[in-house]
């Protein structure tokens, strides 16, 4: 059998899995079989790109998320309230049941003062304190994006703000959705699973198997070129990017079959190597991102 066509038997199921879960969760909420849970979205030390990625979600989109799936109680990027009123909305959540989504790393330098996310009762609230306080009481904690899952770019050498991932400051299990940014489906699919069935099946590093089970390399549409030893020598070619430094062989995630931004494209289809943004160790252990012949360079 040609390896190019030897696709995983779960291929079709995985393609539609996130969408199916989301539709089912919404139906159950509408039939009142399921309670709409509260969602708190914390942005910490990072680029706030995961909330933008979430806004790029197609099915569901933000409108569906906030009207059909959850009560979104806090988001620095989106909420109408500001200042004290915003902080009250955040801090009063402690009395209720909620799911906590966190993007961005946790800056620990000088007790966290390198990232202040608001001011509560006159005192600055550090990202460190906020994530500890809210993480402890949350029903589930979802870390999304490389910075939240393991420090990511915010913790890149020499890590000037002493950033760590969310797990490093919490004693409970943190579901991890690495990626730079996290794909909207990885988040909403995980969220829908929690709403319907509780925590999804996770691997040893607490990533949902639903999305993170298989290496990019194993499902890469350019795998046939790799097997035949046909390698691109520069960006923009349509063969295997392995010698340009592609991290597909070490990165477990479903980009090749899911794709990005309304499922229109993804880095390898854009004739560039995967830079391993969904793998632990990104960015430091995934660099250099672009080399012109890795078999030649030391």
């Amino acid at each position, binding site marked *: 059998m040609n390896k190019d066509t030897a696709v995983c038997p779960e291929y079709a199921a995985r393609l539609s899995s996130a969408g199916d879960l989301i539709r089912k969760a919404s139906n159950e909420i509408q039939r009142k079989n399921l309670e709409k849970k509260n969602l708190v979205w914390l942005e910490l030390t990072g680029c706030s790109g995961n909330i933008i990625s979430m806004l790029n979600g197609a099915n569901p989109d933000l409108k569906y998320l906030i009207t059909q799936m959850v009560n979104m109680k806090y988001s620095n990027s989106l909420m109408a309230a500001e200042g004290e009123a915003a902080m009250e909305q955040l801090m009063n959540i402690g009395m209720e049941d909620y799911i906590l989504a966190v993007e961005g790393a946790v800056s620990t330098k000088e007790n966290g003062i390198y*990232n202040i*996310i608001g001011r509560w009762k006159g005192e600055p609230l550090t990202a460190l304190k906020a994530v500890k306080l809210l993480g402890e009481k949350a029903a589930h904690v979802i870390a999304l994006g490389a910075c939240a899952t393991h420090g990511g770019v915010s913790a890149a050498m020499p890590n000037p703000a002493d950033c760590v991932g969310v797990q490093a400051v919490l004693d409970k299990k943190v579901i991890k959705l690495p990626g730079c940014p996290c794909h909207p489906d990885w988040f909403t699919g995980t969220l829908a699973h929690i709403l319907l069935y509780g925590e999804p099946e996770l691997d040893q590093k607490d990533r949902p198997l639903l999305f993170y089970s298989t290496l990019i390399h194993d499902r890469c549409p350019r795998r046939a070129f790799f097997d035949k030893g046909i390698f691109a020598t520069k960006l923009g070619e349509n063969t295997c990017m392995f010698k340009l430094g592609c991290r597909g062989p070490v990165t477990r995630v479903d980009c090749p079959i899911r794709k990005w*931004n309304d499922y229109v494209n993804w880095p390898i289809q854009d004739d560039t190597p995967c830079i391993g943004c969904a793998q632990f160790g990104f960015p430091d252990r995934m660099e250099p991102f672009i080399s012109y012949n890795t078999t030649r360079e030391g």
Partner: protein
Amino acid sequence: MASRIIINPVTRISGFMEIQALIEDGKVIDAITEGLLFRGFEKMLLGRKPFDAVYFTQRICGICSTAHSMASTLALEAAMGVVPSEQGRYLRDIIHGCEFLQNHLRHFYQYTVPDYVRLPEGYPLFAADHEDFRLPKEKNDIIASHYFDSLDLSRQAHEMLAVLGGKAPHNHGVFIGGITTQATTDKIIKLKSILSIITNFIEDRMVPDVFTIAEYYQDYYQNGRGCGNLLSYGCFNGYKDLGTLYVDPLVQTDGSVQVFDPAGIVEETQFAWYSGGESGYMPFEIMTEENTAKPEAYSWIKAPRYNGLPYEVGPLARQWLSGEYRNGISTMDRTIARVLEAKKIAGVMHTLLKNLIPDVSVQSIYEVPQVAEGAGLIDTTRGALGHWIKINDGAIAFYQIITPSAWNFSTRTNGLKGSAEQALIGTRIGNLNSPVELGRIVRSFDPCVSCATHVYAEGRHLKTIKVMS
């Protein structure tokens, strides 16, 4: 007696900001804006491979990542002596244009509209903290429905970006020589198709909506002026065959417009938490060190200056300098200029798409120079962005980034306050318990604190005093 108003967090911006304003007789007599986030990208970049800067620096910002890919690519091209082909420039600028559309749609509807329009009740996300909503219900509800429509449109702007850029945020397309992939006919027609949908939305919804808001908030033409000096590094300009489609590198100082000269940029750190460069340095000269023990400092945003003066950058500066919009400089003019710019950019992209030749490859095998330096200056969604790189032994030896939000939210120097600080001062506050004016003024600049700040440490915050005069 003066009272102090503190707003933190300033929501609906990218990143974290605190506004402190001193109020006397119902008027702001002094104000500071502080960024509350530190990561230290310039330090992280040292020792990395130069090509990696294009993907690495995008992680500075989730809403304007393409901006950083543009500036870092231009800096690398300057260092390497690479001149991109015109087709390469068109392709790259189309990707950049997609980011403008995405950003301006999101900033107007998702970040600005909730300040002026009451969104549907029953959703915690939309719970308002003030009562200053002036639109008649019918007009209010039309714009509120466009808020939801804008979610689709801004998403589609990023879909366009991904057609050539692979994904967004943090694209893979912008690179030395132009872009990585080739624009095949199916991609070009997809881009044209989405662009026509977005263009219709901007013309039929977004432009009328901003003027509806302006009609009911006329007082916002009177506040938020700022320093009045405008600056642009230029963008969508100087094409060999097409000329300048938008704006050339220009500055306006005290009412007179001149050609921008990069040698005039000096960054100062007199009142910022850094050692080195207090009295000013050129971008290539030094990288500063954090210093939390500096007594006179009050913020971590540095102070870029042009010939010693603060400047406003962004859509209003560009619209003004290009002659597209010259109604005035204020909170409302800034908001209108952003919307009109979305329309302008859609038109520019239409022209660029029309001039694309399908299937052109613009990539080569590039060598990292052993020793080189280069600057990449370009106007991006929020304004003038510069990256300055030095390469030594084939690795990054120096990196300097001056962002648009550093221009707009800079600290003071020699008694000259930053642009946004000046915009806040003099504002009449209607209700001291609900100072909605301050957030509106600051948001009109579209601050990106993720971009602007490098360090935060707690300054000498005074306790909030609520004493009415």
